[in-house]
Structure formats: structure tokens, C-alpha cells
């Protein structure tokens, strides 16, 4: 069952479901981001998502997918099957994301034109994900942050769009991380009622304002707070990507066999 978080009932449910209480303004930036990372994202999930890619002229292309994610211990496996449009239908993407950050993900891509599952190198975390304005890191972390990547600074509270939000600034801990992420600075506007960053401002390695990620809709689904519409706007190219999730299901079993090359090749 789905509820819009901006309805009074859903807000009540969100607060009731959230085991983590809101913090005070004295909370450090690190603690805020630890709360963000502590948010429950379910052991397994299946969902559809639609990607709307809009260029600077306002022309939009739409891609429809089905995706599945499941934890195998601390290891996270994700598989995405493209359904629309016809030119990308059948394309599949499988990732094994290991808990040790020093171990590269294993990734495979199935391209129907080749009829082969291709092993692909672990992308730089700052590479853009399959033509979108989200990076692989953005997609992988699902509104969370790799704590070890940043030094956090609490920038206090800010009132934005009717909400009081924690403002946290993050600076990569070293140049290597900066290069990997493609960001020199990030500012998160974290909503303490849901422990998600409602808005994230990202700056490239030259310090230019590169991108804004905005969570447009949040729902409580199966008791888990879920961002169901997210917009990434690339300020350098004028391109934007809106990611809309639907049919989100945390409760149905996601078979382990889905996360195999054979299944990637066969499709759903």
C-alpha cells in the first residue's frame, strides 16, 4: 500500500515508522549523514522505474525498466531490465556491489544486438549511469552516502519549502576520492523526519556548480520511506533526468536466481 508523504496521514505514518528520532541542531554533520545511512531500505525490493531524459531544448526521451535488488549478507546485488523503447528493450544490467569499498563492483551488461552477456569494468563512481544525469554512485547508494568519502561539516538548519532541514557540507577526504566521485563539494539538505536529503547540490572538481538532485516525491511503502520521484539537473549541459518509481514492493520474495548472467540474457 502506498501513501503520499505530503498527506497528513502519511506524515504521521512516516514519523511512526521511523525509529530514528529527529535530532537537534547541535547534531554534527557526520551524525546527520550516519542517520541518513541508517535508514532502512529493505532487504529486497522490486520496482519499475521510468527515466525521462530531457535535453536543454526541452526534448524528452523516455526509458522504462524493471529493477530488482537484494542483499546477500552485506553484498548488494541489483539487476535492471530495460523494457522501452524498442531500441533498448532487452538490455540488462547486473551489478554485484561488495561491502568493502576497495573492492570493485562486478558488472555485466547484456545487449540484445550482441546476444551476449558482456563483462564490463567497474565504472568510475563519477561516470554517468547509462546516459542519465545520475552517476553510478548516485544510483548505487540510493540516497545514501559513503561516509568514508567525505569530511562533513554541519552548516546548521535551513527552512526550505515548508520544512526545516539540516544543511551538511561534505568535502572529499582526498584528491583520489574527488577524482573518483567527480565532485569537490556536496551540500545535503537533510529532512530529519525522513532522513533523506531533499535537495543535494554538487560541485565539480573545478568548484563549479555541476548538478542538483531533488527528491520530488516521498512515499511510505511497506513501512519503508521511499523516494519515488527524483530529479537530477545538470547545470553544465542543461540536461536533466527524472527518475520515477512505481509498483515498489519490499515484501515479495526476489529470487536469488534473478541475479545471474543466465537470467540477464533471458530477461524476465
Amino acid at each position, binding site marked *: 500500500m502506498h501513501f503520499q508523504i505530503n498527506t497528513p496521514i502519511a506524515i504521521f505514518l512516516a514519523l511512526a515508522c521511523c525509529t530514528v528520532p529527529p535530532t537537534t541542531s547541535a547534531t554534527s554533520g557526520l551524525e546527520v549523514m550516519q542517520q541518513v545511512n541508517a535508514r532502512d531500505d529493505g532487504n529486497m525490493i522490486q520496482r519499475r522505474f521510468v527515466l525521462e531524459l530531457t535535453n536543454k531544448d526541452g526534448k524528452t*526521451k523516455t526509458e522504462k525498466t524493471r529493477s530488482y535488488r537484494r542483499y546477500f549478507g552485506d553484498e548488494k546485488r541489483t539487476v535492471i531490465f530495460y523494457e522501452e523503447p*524498442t531500441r533498448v528493450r532487452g538490455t540488462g544490467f547486473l551489478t554485484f556491489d561488495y561491502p568493502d569499498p576497495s573492492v570493485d563492483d562486478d558488472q555485466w551488461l547484456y545487449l540484445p544486438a550482441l546476444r551476449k552477456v558482456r563483462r564490463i569494468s567497474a565504472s568510475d563512481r563519477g561516470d*554517468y549511469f547509462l546516459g542519465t544525469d545520475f552517476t553510478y554512485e548516485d544510483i548505487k547508494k540510493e540516497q545514501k552516502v559513503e561516509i568514508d568519502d567525505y569530511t562533513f561539516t554541519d552548516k546548521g538548519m535551513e527552512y526550505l519549502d515548508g520544512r526545516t532541514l539540516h544543511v551538511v557540507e561534505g568535502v572529499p577526504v582526498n584528491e583520489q576520492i574527488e577524482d573518483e566521485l567527480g565532485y569537490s563539494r556536496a551540500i545535503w539538505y537533510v529532512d530529519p523526519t525522513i532522513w533523506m536529503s531533499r535537495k543535494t547540490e554538487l560541485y565539480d572538481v573545478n568548484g563549479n556548480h555541476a548538478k542538483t538532485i531533488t527528491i520530488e516525491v516521498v512515499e511510505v511503502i511497506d513501512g519503508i520511506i521511499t523516494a519515488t520521484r527524483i530529479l537530477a539537473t545538470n547545470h553544465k549541459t542543461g*540536461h536533466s533526468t527524472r527518475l520515477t518509481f512505481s509498483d515498489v514492493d519490499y515484501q515479495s520474495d526476489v529470487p536469488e536466481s534473478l541475479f545471474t548472467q*543466465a537470467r540477464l540474457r533471458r530477461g524476465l
Partner: protein
Amino acid sequence: MIRIVAIMIVLMWWSQSQAHAQGLDFRGTLSLEMALETEHREIQKADFVFRPELQGEFGSIGNFTLIGMARFDPADALEPGQPDASNDVRSSMNQRFLLGEDIDAELREAYVDFYWDDAFVRIGKQQVVWGQADGLRVLDAVNPLHFREFILGDFEQRRIPTWMVNIEKPIADAVLQFLWIPDKTYNDTPRSGTYSFKQTTVESNTSPDITSVLINKPNRFIKDDDFGVRVNGFYQGWDWSLNYLYVYDDMPVTRQRRGTDRQYDVTQNYERTHLLGGSASNAFGKVTLRLETGWLSDRFVTVENERDWIDVTRVSEISYVVGLDYQVSGDLLLSTQLFQSVLLDTPKDVNRDGTETNLTLLARHDFLNDSAELEALLMMNANDGDGVLQLSFEYAYSDHVLIGVGADVFFGKQEGRFGQFDKADRVTLMFSYGF
């Protein structure tokens, strides 16, 4: 022509809505693929191609897929006239439907999928692709090929899908695949046309003085069927597979004997062979390593002699591919492959080098948020120093429309596999509408 295309688009829309109403998924592409031969400034092909695809479920048991292809090519230069069906390379259940000289159609794929316990079963006409190499075949030998455009064009369209039973069963952390292929369809090589083979190494060779050709094609049920087994898995970062095929080589072996009055008798036989091999791949940072090897028990090579005979001798052959992909950035991929095939126990006077070496170099750049792709692929034969450079640019104008331009430039000596088409360079144009 415009009227036909308009009618087809209306029919596509109508079919799609009807299929959707029935719980079926109907989609496909309508495309125009043109090629202009630069040397003679002639249109080499003007393919109007319709590729419909219908998918559906039969209850909770499984699902089915039907993929067709209908092509109208008024240029008629790749397979001039009505393609000769008398060579009989396709089985009776794998025939193309030919309408006049310009139209051909075929049921490309037709299969049902279901699970039998934990085993996945696919029965019907299908493509099965093995191996890790791109554009070079070592283990990708399950399906025969159509050489209408020599090596040009997508492998997916060049492979001839065959009727088979395909079972994949998980065993521990691996998957065991079993193939039974009763469909006796082999490589389809046009006898004439722009890219008809001229070399003896790849041609179903004949001489002007030949008076009779006898083609012996396998036809016994089970005994002449092809079989394959593959085990593949993932272990400590490595994708691996072990492959075995017991098949008839898709290219017939030609033997020519002088008869009476300067006449020649030619026989073409399909010969059995065992293909045993494996593949592996792993990623190391931005580099992906791909390996593939195969041992062919029975390779027949032409032997030169002084009596104008085309004789052959049986050898075994080992082939391998080493591929390296370097993901320079999220948008730029560089890839190279080394392919070698080595004849074991090379006989004297054999009409090919004991070791053949091919190299490929690929650069692919995506931009405009993956809406556009620029690609350059160089394939070279190191023995003859010939090759082909393929350039292409594709742009997804919208969700439904894909347009592309390209060029295929052959170079090298006339005796070479690629160089023989040095006069057949071409530029290409593609427009595709997907629904």
C-alpha cells in the same frame, strides 16, 4: 513506395493495439538500410526491412516468442536474381520465402520458454551465442551464418537461427546447458553478388569446366544432428565456461576430380567435427580481459597439386582470442582483440598459412547522454596485410527513430580475405522506426 510504408505503419499501430488487447506484446522495427558502392557509384542495397516481434504467455506455464523478417531490396545487388535454392544449405523447415527477385521473408525465431523444475527450457527456432569474442568466431559456432553481406552487418542478423532444444540447468554455482539441434541448416553463401566469395579458402569453389556438382548433405535423424554442452559459472571474479560441440562444419568441403574429356566432377560434403573449448573474462579496474579458445578436431584444408585438382586434407586446428577492453571514461571505450588459428600438423602444400593472425581495434564514443554513438572498428589479417575499416555514427533522434551513417572501407591485396573486396567499399545510411 511511400504509400506502402504508410500502410505498414498503420498496420503496425493496429496490430500493436490488437495484440495488447489480447494480452500480447507486439513490437518491431521498420527500417531502411542503404549502401552505396563508392567505386562504381552504384546502389548496393536498398533494404526496406520489417522485423515484427510477438510475445505472449500461455497461462502460468511459460511464454512464446515469434520474430519475423520481411525485406524488399530493389537494388538486388547482394543476391542478384532469385537466390539459388538448389544449393540446399537450409533445411526444409528453415527456408526463406522468396517473392520475385527483390523480396524475401523468413520466420527468424519461434520458440517457447518454460521451466521444468529448476531447468530453463527453450524449444524452437533460436540463436545461441557462445564465447567472449566480438566479430571473431571461435566458440560462436552453434548457428550458421548468412554471408549476404560478407562479414558486414550485425551478427544478430547474419546468424541463421536454427530449430533446437536448449536446456539450462543450475548445478551448484554453475549452469549446465545442453543443446540438441536437429535442424540441418548450414552457411548460406550467395553464388553471385557484390560480396560473393572469390577465394578457395572460403568459397564453395567451382571451376568453369565443372560439369557436375554433387552435394552430400547430412539427413539422418539423431545420427546427423548437432549437439552441444556448455558449463559456465562465476568464480572469484572470473566468468568462465567450458564448451563442447559435436557438429557438422557449416562450410562444405569441396573435392574436385578430373573426369573424362577435361571435365571435372565436384563433390561437396559436410564433415563432422568436435569443437572443444572454453572462455574466461574478468575486469581489472578499467580494463576487461576476455579470453576464448577452441580446438577443432577436423578441419579440412585445401592442398595444392599439379593436376588441377582441388584436394583436401584433414587436420586439427586450435584457435584463440585475447581481448582487452579499456574503459577510458564512461563515454569512451577502446578495445582490441588478437585472434590466431593454428593448424596442428600442417601438411605440405597446404593452401593456407599454418598460423593465421587477425587483429581488431575498436573505438566507441557515446555522447549527448548516450543519444549518439560514434564507432570505428578496424579488422586486419596480419598474414595478408588486408583488412576492413568500419566507421559508423548513430543518433537516437527520438524514442522511436534511430538514424545512422557509416562506411566500410576494404584494403589490401586481392588474394586476401578482405582485400578481395577492395573495389566494394561502401557508404551506408540507416533509418529505423521502432514501435
